[in-house]
């Protein structure tokens, strides 16, 4: 076994952005959304991701603007922390450690310094009971703050953050349980509960799904399972409450939101229609239909200029208040299952898989962005649960990327299976795939595999499909039989093959396309596409063939097959004999198109192992035990844009292509070498310029802050770059100029010092100029100094001398002359600092 010390499995993009409600900044320029273990900041106008706020170590479960400072945002996570961020610059400000997994976060302008979180009631067990807890955030300058002042507000609430909402001006908080609405008034410290019957007369379900409160009036809007919206009023009395009902949605309302002025109510559900109700004139409605997947969350910007809706297909739509879509932020759609395999579009090098219902998505791996969706089914999507829809189940690209074959099917029952095979030609003018041929009912049963031959010159004229009906068919690109010049080329059936009425499962063309291997249960048949003759049959019973693959390049004489009886067989096609056999439960076999390497995913004791090998030698080049739990069923080799030049044996297989795979939990994972990782890290850090400057009076002044940052483990990584030696004299000016003006002492204090520093640095004017140029870059870094921290720094100046001495010892590069100057400065330093203290 080869050690795999320097190759690591990492997540690669495509994370969920629709998990929780996104937050819009007050000027509607930014959109924050929870995405896996980080918070992403998008621009609402360009749809680009500006920052990734990283720091949480578990799933982020909520993002919220800080009510008292609109440039900051809270995020909470299952790791039990709440973090405060400056989202415009992507800087973490503070971390509050709560200690319990947090499922939702709320805050109100009225409750200064308090946030409300949803945590499980019992920490030890995975209970289904949750409580709403008020947390007093301690005022502290520390980066890492432990919040201990917790007080339970409501118990037994829903873990769904949409089921809890703050009322008018934060006076009360409303929480919905399945059939109960609970309103807690902060002033009275009292809660009222309102109950609904389980089912109404018409058989609709009254279960609450979401809730929101009117911003200026005492009105609560609640959404229900049967599509009704109830507007509750007069609920500050136990008995005299009233409600009115609005009904448009045909199935559950999943999100409700009032606009900031309270003039409109927005609702959305599985129909994917955003409904805008006029408050108090509920018969007037505006609709925005066909937004995509089911609406899961709606949020409104504080100024009311933008709405945004999250959709079940991992999409956020940004809508202007005039009910017009202005931008769409689309993540990788993973849906409930990947029916097509993972593929790489040879033209755009994008990852292709089925996404939205009836669509193929093209996802750029380099830019981690969805390029576009190709509509395969071309039918109106009916948003209704329980309806059998057409699904894209199979797709294949030819080697040049000029043809795409797709299979769509509807209904799983054999009797009423609707199948169609579509062939798409790439149109250079439109830069997109254009439907060329539709073959309805190409086979009588489900298609199990599709395969184009690998033709080097790009002129593909053949496609092979295998089906459960026991046949495999070859489709040929040809002009129609009745010659008509105006009609272009289209695909038609060329050959139908069968073998002993067995069911073909897999097919594969050899590297030069002169051979076609089709597996019929435990038999591999080898055909020549030129004359459609059966050349030979290969078999290694027992066990049906699960996957089939030809070798590439120098190993193209080998044919590999993985069987269900835990065997991996390799046949030499020149001798038609078995070359080698190993006992492995291979679930997936993939060949790298650019090298001889093959990757075999083996299922072993509940987890999947990876072996990379060349067919000519049954010794793995690389192996990785326990990639992830469960079976890996989708993987693909993606060619790299730039070849790596790693000569290490274990990572050499990653030189020309990268291996991506989907874990059973639908995470897109890939392998990364140590060298590559370092390079990526380095490129990230080029933006962050070192703070490690030499000793100056200003450094002494800031010493406290520096120390504090160094204590913070989060900051360590960004500061661990090797220090850039800078002339000490210019650094003073540098520090002075890059400090925000409002945190500096008054100019009269600084003047003499500043002049002195200038006098000293006279010898080296070029260096100071050079540094001035760098200032702009560095200023970005320094903006993290918020007011709070600055205050604490100024209020404790007595720590400074000790801090300064430490730093002097830590700086060995000072020349004699510099040390002398520094000493002189120190003397001066004390004098003015004394003055400051006396005041």
């Amino acid at each position, binding site marked *: 076994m080869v050690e795999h010390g320097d190759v690591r499995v990492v997540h690669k993009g495509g994370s969920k952005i629709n998990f929780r409600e996104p937050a819009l900044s007050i000027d509607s320029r930014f959109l924050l959304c929870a995405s896996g273990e980080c918070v992403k900041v998008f621009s609402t106008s360009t749809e680009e991701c500006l920052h990734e706020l990283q720091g949480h170590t578990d799933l982020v479960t909520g993002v919220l603007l800080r009510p008292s400072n609109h440039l900051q945002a809270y995020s909470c996570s299952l790791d039990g922390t709440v973090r405060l961020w400056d989202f415009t610059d992507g800087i973490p400000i503070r971390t509050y450690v709560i200690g319990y997994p947090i499922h939702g976060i709320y805050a109100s302008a009225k409750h200064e310094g308090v946030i409300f979180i949803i945590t499980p009631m019992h920490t030890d067990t995975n209970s289904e009971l949750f409580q709403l807890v008020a947390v007093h955030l301690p005022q502290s300058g520390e980066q890492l703050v432990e919040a201990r002042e917790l007080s339970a507000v409501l118990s037994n609430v829903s873990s769904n953050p949409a089921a809890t909402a703050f009322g008018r001006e934060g006076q009360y908080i409303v929480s919905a349980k399945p059939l109960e609405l609970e309103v807690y008034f902060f002033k009275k410290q009292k809660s009222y509960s309102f109950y609904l019957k389980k089912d109404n007369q018409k058989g609709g379900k009254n279960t609450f799904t979401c809730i929101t409160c009117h911003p200026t009036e005492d009105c609560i809007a609640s959404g229900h399972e049967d599509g009704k919206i109830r507007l509750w009023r007069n609920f500050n009395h136990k008995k005299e409450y009233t409600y009115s009902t609005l009904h448009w949605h045909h199935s559950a309302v999943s999100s409700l939101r009032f606009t900031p002025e309270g003039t409109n109510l927005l609702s959305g559900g599985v129909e994917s229609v955003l409904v805008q109700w006029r408050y108090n004139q509920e018969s007037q409605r505006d609709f*925005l*239909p*066909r*937004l*995509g997947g089911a609406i899961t969350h709606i949020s409104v910007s504080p100024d009311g200029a933008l709405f945004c809706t999250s959709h079940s297909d991992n999409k956020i*739509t940004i809508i202007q208040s005039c009910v017009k*879509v202005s931008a769409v932020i689309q993540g990788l759609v993973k849906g409930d299952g990947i029916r097509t395999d993972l593929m790489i579009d040879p033209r755009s090098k994008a990852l292709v898989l089925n996404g939205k219902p009836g669509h193929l998505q093209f996802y750029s791996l380099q830019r981690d962005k969805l390029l576009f969706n190709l*509509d395969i089914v*071309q*039918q*109106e999507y*009916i948003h*209704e649960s329980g*309806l*059998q*829809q*057409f699904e894209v189940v199979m797709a294949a690209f030819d080697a040049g990327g000029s043809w795409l074959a797709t299979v769509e099917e*509807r209904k799983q029952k054999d009797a009423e299976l609707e199948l169609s095979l579509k062939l798409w030609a790439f149109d250079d003018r439109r830069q997109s795939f254009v439907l060329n041929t*539709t*073959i*309805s*009912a*190409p086979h009588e049963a489900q298609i199990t595999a599709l395969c184009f031959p690998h033709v080097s010159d790009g002129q593909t004229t053949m496609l092979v499909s295998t089906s459960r009906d026991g*046949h495999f*068919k070859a489709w040929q690109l040809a002009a129609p039989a*009745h010659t*008509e010049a105006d009609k272009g080329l289209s695909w*038609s*059936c*060329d*050959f*139908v*093959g*069968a*073998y*002993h*009425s067995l069911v073909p499962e897999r097919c594969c063309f050899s590297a030069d396309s002169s051979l076609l291997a089709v597996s019929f249960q435990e*038999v*591999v*048949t080898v055909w020549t596409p030129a004359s*459609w*003759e*059966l*050349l*030979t*049959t*290969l*078999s*290694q019973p027992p066990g049906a063939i699960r996957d089939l693959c030809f070798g590439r390049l120098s190993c193209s004489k080998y044919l590999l097959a993985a069987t269900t009886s835990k065997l991996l067989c390799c046949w030499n096609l020149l001798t*038609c*004999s*078995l070359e080698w056999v190993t006992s492995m439960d291979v679930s997936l076999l993939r060949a790298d198109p650019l090298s001889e390497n093959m990757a075999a995913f083996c299922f072993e004791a509940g987890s999947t192992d990876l072996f990379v090998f060349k067919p000519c030698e049954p010794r793995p080049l690389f192996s990785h035990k326990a990639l992830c739990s469960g079976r890996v069923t989708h993987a693909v080799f993606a060619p790299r844009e730039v070849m790596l030049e790693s000569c290490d044996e274990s990572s050499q297989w990653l030189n020309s292509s990268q291996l991506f795979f989907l874990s059973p939990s639908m995470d897109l994972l890939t392998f990364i070498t140590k060298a590559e990782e370092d390079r990526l890290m380095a490129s990230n850090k080029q933006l962050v310029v070192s703070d490690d400057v030499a000793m100056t009076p200003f450094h002494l002044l800031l010493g406290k802050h520096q120390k504090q940052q160094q204590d913070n483990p989060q900051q360590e990584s960004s500061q661990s770059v090797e220090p850039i030696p800078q002339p000490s004299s210019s650094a003073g000016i540098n520090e002075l100029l890059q400090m925000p003006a409002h945190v500096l002492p008054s100019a009269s204090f600084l003047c003499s010092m500043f002049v002195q520093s200038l006098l000293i640095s006279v010898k080296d004017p070029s260096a100071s100029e050079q540094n001035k140029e760098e200032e702009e870059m560095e200023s970005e870094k320094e903006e993290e100094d918020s007011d709070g921290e600055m205050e604490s720094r100024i209020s404790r100046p007595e720590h400074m001398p000790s801090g300064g001495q430490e730093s002097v010892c830590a700086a060995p590069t000072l020349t004699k002359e510099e040390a002398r100057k520094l000493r002189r400065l120190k003397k001066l330093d004390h004098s003015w600092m004394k003055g400051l203290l006396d005041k």
Partner: protein
Amino acid sequence: MASYKPTKIPVYPKLGEKVTGDTLYWKNYKTPIQIKEFGAVSNIDFSPVAPYNFAVTAFTRIHLYGPLSQEPVKTYTRFKDTAYCGRFRSDGQLLVAGCEDSVVRLFDVGGKVALRMFKGHTKAVHVTDFTSDRYQILTGSDDYTCCLWDIPNSVKLNTYQEHTDYIRCGVTSKLNRDLFVTGSYDHSLKVFDARTDKSVMTINHGHPVESLLLYPSEGLLVSAGGRYVRVWDLLKGGQPLVSLKNHHKTVTCLALSKNGQRLLSGSLDRHVKVYNTTTYKVVHNFDYPAAILSLALAPKDKSIVVGMTNSILNIKHQKPSEKAKATAGHARRRPSYRVYSHRKRYNPKLDDYLVSKPVREHLAKYDKQLKKFNVSKALDRALEAGTKARKPEITVAVIKELDRRGTLKNALAGRDEQELSQLLRFMIGNLIDARFAPVLITPAEMILDIYQSVIGQSPVVDKQLLHLQSLLERELDYQKDLLEVLGMLDTLFASSLPKMEVPCSGISTSNGLTLGESTASRPQVQVT
């Protein structure tokens, strides 16, 4: 936000013949004019000069028809017996005809009485023609001889006695006054030169020759006899060029279309076939009610005239071309004195700010209803659209769409007698169509489920249901027969394939069945 995606109407492969340029050209004729003659129409000849009258030889008369008239403009009745082969001279002034009584008569087109009577044959004269110098007449007779006559002197110039059977066809060269070709029941064609006493070329057709035709260039000679139409290259000494066997009864007549690009042949099998003269493939086919004896095309293909054994003359006139129609329409338009600057003609200038207006997409009526989820109305609109446009695929596509949405049952239910019978009419028309059957079986079952309680209340619906039942029974029988045929064919294919020995290492069983034909074209079998 995506817009509403309209229902996709699939394009089904066209059943029947493909539409080609030829089909369109030869279909571009009006409904035929049928004229009853006195007997079988044996010959039709167009006058070479305007107004292109044509002479129709039938029984004892020759009728002269104008290009558009349905009544004969002139009749020649001075025949003692059946007349044959009335032909015009190249200036259209004279007409010659043979007769069963062996006398050849020459008429002036204006007169009624024969100008000349050429007597000398002993049996019926079936072939008469003018030579290209316009002063001589060629005749061929059942007495195995053909003669050349001088018109001014009405004397026999020469007699050729080379054929050994009836001479039934002949043609003179339009380029050389001395050349002519005769065809006879002795299976031979003979090319004669009037300057010599003997035939210069003999070609064996293989069957009694019924008709002859020379191409305008006169390099090629077409002969018809038996079921064959043969083309000979005269410049290569009568070398056979192509032999066409597209009729299944004797070919009786030949004609060329306007520029010699299409060859037409009429036959006793009641068909006229049109051949392309470069590929000699049949490009079009006309059906007629009776066996065809004679065929002629007006100059520029303005009309096709066919004579049949049941003494019907069938005239088809070409429809006026689109161009002519368009110019006629243009002339009728009133002159406009006002000039409007139409909005669409306004060209935006460089620094204009364009305010784009949302383009309203046009949706079909059924799509508008589908968009509003009005399923019953959508089905109604689709039924209307399908019948109006004679495109059942529209209705079928909407039914499929409704099925996909899971609302087909709602759309079918709640109909009154009239609406139900409309639906049933559509089902009767299309249920057994192989292209639509897989889709239509579901709604048919649903209709029976929904309306089984009201069966017996309406005679109209009951009648339609019975009709539907009988249709289905017949279809089942067809399918059964087809399956039987398929089974027979499979055995034939399997036995005709050579057994191959497979050099296999793994298993030693023999090769599986390979079917060398495409199942895409194989009839899909539906069992209802």
